[in-house]
């Protein structure tokens, strides 16, 4: 497992509208189709919008914020920020 897979997914969200659509339509399937593959605990955290946990796992804060920016996986910028802060408080 590498948080690189999470970071790459976040980056793809910025540049691939079809991925954003897939995440809105069927997030579990979209995450399982990601390459490189995501680990089960990464998928669980992503489905929960748990950016705080992903941050603790080593995912990049700036890339995680893109999930909030594009409002996927139940995230938006305010709850992204709240969850990151809470994880590091």
């Amino acid at each position, binding site marked *: 497992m590498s948080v690189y897979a999470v*970071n*790459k997914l976040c*980056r793809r969200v*910025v*540049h691939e509208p079809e991925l954003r659509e897939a995440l809105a339509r069927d997030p579990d399937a979209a995450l399982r189709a990601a390459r490189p593959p995501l680990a089960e605990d990464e998928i669980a955290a992503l489905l929960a919008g748990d950016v705080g946990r992903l941050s603790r796992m080593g995912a*990049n*804060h*700036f*890339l*995680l*914020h893109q999930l*909030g*920016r594009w409002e996927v996986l139940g995230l938006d*910028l305010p709850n*992204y*920020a709240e969850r*990151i*802060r809470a994880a*590091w408080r």
Partner: protein
Amino acid sequence: MAETVGGFGVPHNPHFPLWVADGAPAAAEIERLYGGVAAHLRAARPDLLLVFTADHYNMFFETCVPIFAIGVAESAAGASDYPQLPRRVVPIAAGLARHLHAHTVRAGFDVGISQELELDHTVIALLAFLFPDDVPPIVPVFVNGLIPPLPSAQRCLAFGRAIAADGAPAAADRGPRERQLLARDRRAADQRDLAHGVPAPEWVDRVVGLLGAADVDRLVAEATEERLAEAGNAGGELLEWIAMLGTIPPARPAFLDVQPEFGHAYAAWPAP
């Protein structure tokens, strides 16, 4: 011989050009702050801009993440990451860019190059305010301020000083006035922006205070990797400011203002 006509620092908030175009409540303040820097910048009459910036995972990611890199293409378009921003093509002073690459490598810095590139919002957003129409050729200088491990503040200052120490011979791109502008984009310490998560307002105050006091050495000493990480998810972008500060003599800025709610600073150090 090139002449450095000043150093300038501004944010690259991708929302600001759109807010101003839409007449958002913050528009007047944004225009005032950029205008304060732009007045000094235009008075300096630069022939070209060295733009110290940090790619936001748009160009450098899968293949390579260089600590320092220079764009050496003839031009670059953008913004690659914010299609909402009006797309524009920016000329690059490719000859000087290649010269600076060779110079800094020979000075002991491991600097990459990008021979085909797109610019992201970190360049395009600020040009919307500083050069909304014609822009002088730029040299994009990338400092990794986002992907750990970050270069040290000391290293970034030394990198800027190495660029300033360049003899800047008769580069093909040099304009007739032989002036060289050292521009810079970025926020001082990135907090509480819409996009960012772990604010440290006291760090913004500290950075702006040190900038105002021309205490670059203290700023560099305090800008540790831990401090930058605590400042927010783009706190490392202060390293771009520090690299820029390496290119000019330490001095109090002629213009300095801050938007504490965003963690953004605006500053101008025109050459005397």
